[in-house]
């Protein structure tokens, strides 16, 4: 603008000649200032981004790490034969007849004995049944499973690691305080006093919680038993479906569109629609999946197969777009070279173009898979959430067809539950999910670095 209004004439070059290189004129100063300002904006933007990223990571780790440890009460349990096997013949059917209610008093008694044997311990709790509130509701079931698996140990005293109740666990992790206990009928201050003393005695320990990583979800009031393992298996089977379907379909579609299809209105329309599909909210894919796969095709509800199909639909546009981009990035001279020595179009594509595009395709696929792995919304609609994933699938077919959950859906499910212990589990689940996503992204980066070829 100012150039045009600057005086034109013989005196301009003269003036320019007078100016020294050592001083900066006003225009240059302004330009430099503008550049500096722009850099500051950029640094500020990056700074804000990093700041929030750090806050996010710190809060995730702080809230989630406690989920990886769990409080256990280690006591010798006397497996009373009169209670567990009144007939004394170790018949599995007879053993099964004793329900968890039969086992609970054994645990109470075991802890009570330990409390009484520990020297210098004072407590107002004077009855074995008072110990019940310190023990997880799942503990009798775990003990029962152990006995059913090892019937020959009935009648003996076995050292057992008993899962503590979530309030005890919370007290160990500073989640439960004496103030909050005052209004809590699940546990009393007397129990907390006892816990303090048992910790000192080494009976109550906080240990790494493998069950959180490998275990199954538990019901609403037993957060101490809940794990993400089964949901992880659900996610794994879904990712298998997504990979097996979306990679070949996506790559075939992109190769056809990019290399073979005539350029006309119809292919333009397809192209526009693929780009649009990539931007469609994922919940819409969930509704589509519900309508097509479950209501129309009558595939089983809540099954990883259906979840995988829905996520395939969602991932396909991502894979097609990234595959086409990497095919486009292969220089046309390579195609010319191949055609020039008499390769057919397909030979040119499969022998030369595709290998060069492979790192890009793989990267796109892994990023698409990572996206699908973290997707929750479409799974809500096909019922992969709300189901309590209590069992491991029995084999591969069951893995695909039996109801299951997925990691993000499990996290969502936990975050809905009332018990604050589930809040901690949700954060722990997020840590595991993020680890998976980070691993996948790192693999993508490594693949890109390793196989990137220069020409």
């Amino acid at each position, binding site marked *: 603008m100012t150039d045009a209004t600057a005086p034109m004439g013989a005196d301009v070059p003269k003036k320019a000649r007078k100016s020294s290189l050592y001083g900066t004129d006003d225009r240059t100063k302004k330009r430099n200032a503008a550049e500096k300002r722009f850099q500051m904006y950029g640094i500020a933007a990056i700074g804000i981004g990093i700041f929030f990223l750090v806050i996010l990571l710190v809060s995730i780790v702080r809230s989630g790490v406690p989920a990886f440890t769990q409080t256990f009460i280690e006591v010798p349990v006397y497996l009373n034969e009169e209670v567990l096997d009144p007939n004394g013949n170790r018949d599995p059917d007879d053993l099964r007849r004793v329900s968890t209610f039969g086992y609970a008093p054994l645990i109470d008694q075991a802890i009570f004995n330990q409390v009484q044997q520990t020297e210098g311990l004072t407590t107002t709790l004077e009855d074995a049944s008072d110990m019940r509130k310190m023990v997880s509701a799942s503990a009798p079931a775990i003990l029962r499973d152990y006995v059913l698996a090892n019937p020959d140990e009935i009648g003996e005293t076995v050292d057992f690691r008993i899962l503590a109740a979530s309030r005890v666990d919370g007290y160990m992790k500073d989640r439960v305080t004496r103030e909050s206990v005052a209004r809590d009928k699940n546990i009393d201050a007397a129990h907390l006093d006892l816990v303090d003393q048992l910790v000192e005695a080494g009976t109550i320990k906080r240990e790494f919680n493998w069950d959180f990583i490998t275990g199954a979800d538990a019901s609403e009031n037993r957060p101490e038993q809940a794990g993400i393992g089964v949901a992880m298996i659900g996610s794994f089977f879904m990712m298998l479906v997504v990979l097996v379907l979306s990679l070949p379909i996506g790559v075939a579609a992109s190769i056809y569109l990019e290399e073979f299809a005539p350029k006309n209105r119809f292919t333009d329309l397809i192209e526009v629609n693929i780009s649009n599909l990539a931007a469609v909210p994922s919940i819409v894919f969930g509704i589509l999946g519900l309508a097509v796969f479950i209501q129309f095709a009558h595939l089983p509800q809540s099954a990883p197969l259906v979840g995988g199909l829905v996520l395939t639909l969602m991932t396909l546009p991502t894979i097609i777009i990234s595959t086409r981009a990497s095919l486009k990035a292969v220089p046309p001279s390579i195609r*010319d070279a*191949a055609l*020039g020595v008499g390769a057919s179009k397909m030979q040119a594509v499969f022998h030369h173009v595709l290998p060069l595009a492979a790192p890009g395709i793989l990267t796109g696929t892994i990023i698409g898979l990572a996206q699908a792995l973290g997707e929750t919304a479409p799974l809500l609609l096909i019922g992969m959430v709300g189901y309590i994933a209590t069992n491991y699938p029995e084999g591969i077919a069951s893995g695909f067809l039996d109801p299951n959950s997925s990691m993000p859906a499990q996290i969502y499910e936990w975050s809905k539950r009332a018990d604050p212990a589930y809040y901690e589990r949700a954060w722990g689940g997020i840590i595991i999910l993020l680890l998976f996503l980070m691993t996948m992204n790192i693999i993508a980066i490594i693949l890109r670095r390793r196989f990137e070829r220069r020409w």
Partner: protein
Amino acid sequence: MYDTPKSGVDVDAREVKISARGVQVFYGDTHAIKDVDVEIQDKMVTAFIGPSGCGKSTFLRCLNRMNDTIDICRVEGNINLDGENIYDAKVDPVQLRAKVGMVFQKPNPFPKSIYDNIAYGPRIHGLAKNKADLDEIVEKSLRRGAIWDEVKDRLHAPGTGLSGGQQQRLCIARAVATEPEVLLMDEPCSALDPIATAQVEELIDELRGNYSVVIVTHSMQQAARVSQKTAFFHLGNLVEFGETGQIFTNPEDPRTESYITGRIG
């Protein structure tokens, strides 16, 4: 300043390899080649010269149907190779391209080993029965490409690691590996330095013994040095076609004269 045509070549006695009659090429609505008639003879170098955008490369690409890969490109007229119309519906362009090899402006070796670069064509056309055959073809082709001595010790090194001139000779070797009858070269030296250019030109002169070579070039000196016949294209028309010596010393058309003396272009 221009060399005379290579001595001992009786230009008109050679049999016609490619004969083009009334060739028209359209890119969409653009009329790129207008009614070109040209006869390319066997065992001889034919040069196409002309200013940028005159259609010489387009015409060259018609000769092995490389233009088929461009959607909007349409070719009319007859181009016969040994009397057979290459645009006939029965002709598979893949087979045609095995007979009519091509070398491109920018050296474009495959990002594979030198050996695989040469072996690719023979492999897909089934020219070698076994590994020994293939080794022989590779060696013969690299010798013909005048690059054997430079690469014989590193046949499994990547072809993209060679210098520009070596890459272009590798591409020429790759083109001759499929035993073509005609070799099309689209400005093969434009990306090369003068020394590499001289090597490639020498190679072209040797290749003339076995193939019909058609070369598109921007350098009139190069056309004069390597070719026996020259065609001058201007604005999509074939202005003049004749013996190289005659085109450069005594052109018939005033446009040719203007171009070679540097007045248009």
